[in-house]
């Protein structure tokens, strides 16, 4: 993995802040998507996102454990050293559709986890700090587990590649 010069994370607190933010933003996004799917009467997908949020929550708590006692830096959102426009596990909003299928939702999540994995792998490969490299590698590993888990879930779906059903209802005006 090639190092992107200004994206090199040097210290443990900086790394942990990234990791916590990654997970927290991911949780928040999944919750938001859960809300949105509920609002749009797609309870099945809402449940998928809620589940992903729950897992993320656990993961975030775990990472926060690592940070106990450390003073984390304050970094403005735009100065995070992400390799993606937003934090890696927030996904591409425009991929969403209210009629999205379970397969599509899981692929969306898989994309997130992959980006997460890539981020950690990038840190593991490029950080100048040994401790950071090790922890990042560990997290990358965990993300890989998530990917595997998602892949398994996807494989178990009857129709993983399903496309959204055609939207038979015209959009409404609400105001």
């Amino acid at each position, binding site marked *: 993995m090639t190092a992107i010069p200004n994206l090199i994370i040097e210290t443990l607190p900086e790394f942990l802040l990234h990791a916590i933010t990654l997970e927290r933003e991911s949780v928040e996004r999944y919750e938001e998507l859960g809300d949105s799917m509920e609002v749009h009467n797609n309870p099945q997908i809402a449940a998928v996102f809620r589940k992903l949020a729950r897992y993320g929550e656990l993961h975030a708590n775990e990472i926060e454990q690592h940070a106990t006692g450390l003073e984390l830096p304050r970094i403005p959102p*735009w100065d995070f050293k992400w390799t993606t*426009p937003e934090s890696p596990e927030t996904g591409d*909003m425009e991929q969403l559709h209210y009629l*999205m299928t379970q397969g599509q939702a899981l692929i969306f999540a898989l994309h997130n986890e992959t980006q997460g994995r890539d981020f950690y792998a990038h840190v593991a490969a490029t950080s100048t700090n040994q401790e950071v490299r090790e922890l990042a590698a560990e997290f990358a590993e965990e993300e890989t587990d998530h990917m595997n888990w998602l892949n398994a879930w996807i494989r178990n779906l009857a129709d993983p590649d399903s496309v959204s059903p055609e939207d038979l209802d015209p959009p409404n*005006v609400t105001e």
Partner: protein
Amino acid sequence: MHGNTPITGLKPKDYKTGIKPVWCPGCGDFSVLSAVTKALAHLALPHQNVAMISGIGCSSRLPAYTSVYGFHGVHGRALALASGLKAARPDLTVLVAGGDGDGFSIGGNHFLHACRRNMDMTYIVMDNEVYGMTKGQASPTTAPDWTQSKLTPHGPGVPQFIPAAIALVSGATFIARGFTGNPNGLTKLLVEAIEHPGFSFVQALSPCPTYRPEHKAWKKQVRPVEEEATSDPIIAAQRIQTDDGMSTGVLYQTTVPVWQPEQGISADTGQLEEVFFV
């Protein structure tokens, strides 16, 4: 920073109300909500000292989703309402949000005059080049050849309105363009805009997947502005006019005195009445 004492430890989520947005999944406006709350958290502004004013449209639903003071006014008049609020309450941080229809069609006059007046507030337009709320008609920023609206079956046929260019000649002192596909970049622009003393205008390219699905392509078209922000209006005009409307970043920034009514008490009502005595 408007004399507010920042409160630390506030997270973006603390600036959300928990009311679930009615927006279509995939709508760019979600990212604007996210960027706004991140910017407020970054600036650590106390909720009670911020007001978010809007008009009518999908995008104008924003205030109800942020946990600061809000006013969801009538179509096209958000800037006027906000200007009155700021004039009467200069201590507040005033944000204004809305759509391209709200801001540039029915609200065009207030846009012109708010830019000129240069009061210290921030105006965020979620530009989706369409009237989302009313089923997808052409807005001023819609391309002349977009034929998907039943009201303009041959396309609106008139050149696109260039918000940054109008803002510039009208006198806005901070002009930026962001993209909802890059919410952190947008957050940065919003923070700068809010910190800017004077009228700051942020055009947020915010796709409407429902009526303008073709705007998925924006992702590939946007790019950061190449040059540093200029404070020279001539240079800024040139850049804005010659670019394709897809470059993001601060396009123009200058500092000129902010308009704010004179304040201070020098008389009571009784003294005012003295002149009437015979």
